[in-house]
């Protein structure tokens, strides 16, 4: 393939509503919907699917995103064995199992991929949504993979990071899909009990039941430039209320103005930014005692020290009780 120059037209109109599906050109070339620059596939990938001319953020698959975010492109999937079923035997214009099969043919196995990885040096669990799989819709598998990933973060004692890109609940699973909202909330409560941070990145688009559940409860919440973030999409609002909405309605930059996100961050800067945050939040490591007796003696608790000498096999749990450092249990808070 001959090397064509990248056409550069500077049109940095921030907050213009992006076109969700950019034009497909012959071959793997892509055209930026905002500035009309054209890129070859390898150029797109090298720039993490961000327009080199105008910084427009293209949609990106969950597995690609994990490759870009993880240190060394190295990540271990969690919950990859989970697959959808068809509990309602749902048929709209097409049977639900057919929709699943054609989505799977594009390479992913569900609308979320969860993994353990390192982000700029910090170990964490990440749950990354994939708009390319049935609009990133949240069905039972998304809920269960999210829950398994959160369980894993709690078991390992490491932070939980999510990148959302979803049209909301998966219609084809009916009310069972709706319940996944509550299920993700349960996972957040468990992360809270374990004292672990929950970091949210909102990518285009984050709407409906995903925005109205875990995506709006990040301890710290970043958004990608130009991402649409809303409970009800602009079209639904215009149809219901006959309001004419401004072009930049619900976009990340507006959500920052209205106080619903903490920062708008370029995709290429996310790993460093999240890594820095997780480093700030890291608790100092607990000193490992050489022996119970010396540690207890250093703390000046004579009775406890003599107990420890008498019981060399004293369990960590019992020691914590003696030292008055009871571990936090769920239910200690209301």
């Amino acid at each position, binding site marked *: 393939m001959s090397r064509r120059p990248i056409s550069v037209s500077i049109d940095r109109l921030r907050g213009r509503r992006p076109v969700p599906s950019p034009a497909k050109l012959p071959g793997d070339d892509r055209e930026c919907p905002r500035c009309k620059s054209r890129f070859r596939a390898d150029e797109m990938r090298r720039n993490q699917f961000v327009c080199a001319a105008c910084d427009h953020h293209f949609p990106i698959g969950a*597995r690609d995103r994990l490759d870009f975010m993880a240190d060394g492109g190295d990540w271990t999937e969690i919950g*990859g*064995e*989970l*697959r*959808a*079923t068809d509990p*309602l035997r*749902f048929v*709209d*214009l097409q049977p639900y199992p057919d929709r699943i099969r054609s989505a799977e043919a594009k*390479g*992913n*196995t569900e609308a979320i991929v969860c993994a353990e990885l390192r982000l700029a040096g910090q170990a964490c669990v990440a749950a990354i949504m994939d708009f390319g799989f049935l609009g990133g819709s949240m*069905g*039972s*598998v998304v*809920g*269960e993979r999210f*829950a398994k990933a959160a369980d894993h973060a709690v078991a390992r004692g490491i932070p939980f990071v999510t990148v959302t890109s979803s049209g909301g*609940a998966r*219609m084809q*699973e*009916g*009310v*069972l*899909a*709706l*319940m*996944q*909202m*509550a*299920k993700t*909330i*349960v996972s*957040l*409560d*468990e992360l809270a009990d374990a004292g672990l941070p929950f970091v949210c990145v909102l990518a285009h688009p984050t709407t*409906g*039941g995903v*925005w*109205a*559940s875990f*995506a*709006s*409860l990040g301890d710290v919440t970043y958004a990608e430039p130009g991402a649409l973030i809303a*409970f*009800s999409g602009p079209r*639904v*609002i215009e149809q*219901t*209320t006959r*309001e004419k909405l401004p072009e930049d*309605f*619900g976009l990340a930059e507006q959500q920052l103005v*209205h106080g*619903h996100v903490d920062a708008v961050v370029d995709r290429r800067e996310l790993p460093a930014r999240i890594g820095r945050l997780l480093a700030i939040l890291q608790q100092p490591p607990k000193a490992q005692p050489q022996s119970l007796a010396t540690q207890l003696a250093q703390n000046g608790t004579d009775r406890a020290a003599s107990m420890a000498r008498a019981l060399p096999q004293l369990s960590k749990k019992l020691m914590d009780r003696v030292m008055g450092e009871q571990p936090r249990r*769920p*239910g200690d808070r*209301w």
Partner: protein
Amino acid sequence: MGPRRGPRFVRRVVDRFAHSEQEGGDVWEAIQLARHQDRPYPLDYIARLMPDFEEIHGDRLEGDDAAIVAGVGRYHGRPVAVIGQQKGRDAQDRAFRNFGMPNPEGYRKGMRLMELAAKMEIPLVTLIDTPGAFPGAGAEERGQGGAIARSMLMMLRLPAPTVAVVIGEGSSGGALALGVADRVVMLENSTYSVISPEGAAAILWRDAGKAKLAAQAFKPTAANCYRWGIADAVVPEPDGGAHTDHDGAARLLDGYLSRTLRELGALPVPERRRLRRERFRRLGAHRELPPDSAALMAQGADRAD
């Protein structure tokens, strides 16, 4: 789903309804009944179940949302907090109540009450009846999504027993915001769905006129929700439906509510919270590939990238 305990009369209702369901015709009828304008709304139940009731107003931030009523009342000799979505009966009242579609202020008013319920360990009863949270530009700017999410989290953490009752139509996250309870029950002619049939028709069939078709695809009846584990019980309505007899409907709900609150009250707080979490952790339908084939498929997907 494990076996469910429950009074025999509830089972009878489920069986009767399940039988007619198999023949396929009653879904649309159920939706019409769930939306019947003469059905009892939260204030109708409250007036009958707790004559001493103090309603609270406002979220202390933006204003008061009439689509949600919230307050504390005396119920069988004890304080109980109640939050419900309120629709109007005539044109003027319907507009005042915003057709039962809450704004963020409504959910935040509810959360004010949850704070009281948490502080005093008062049980919470929610009465769900909404076509969904209000889709408006202002609602979005004032944090509709976050209000719904926070309401769910707060409900999940309450110490005292919680019961959510779907009394009419429960649609979308706007309904679930009040639905994260120890027990979720549905009245015989109520519905619970991810979206209203009209909304689904517009999105999935690209034709708002296909609502009846959408309703049959979603099958959001009480009997089906019971079968899927979404509802823990179905509370019967008077013959002819709740809209024909408000007193009778309130009596039947009272029977279930008072017994269930007593039952739940016997559990210690950490145990109740653990069971509540587990209840929602379980919901869904998925399958697991055998470990080796999952690994193979993941590798295949990686290679395809």
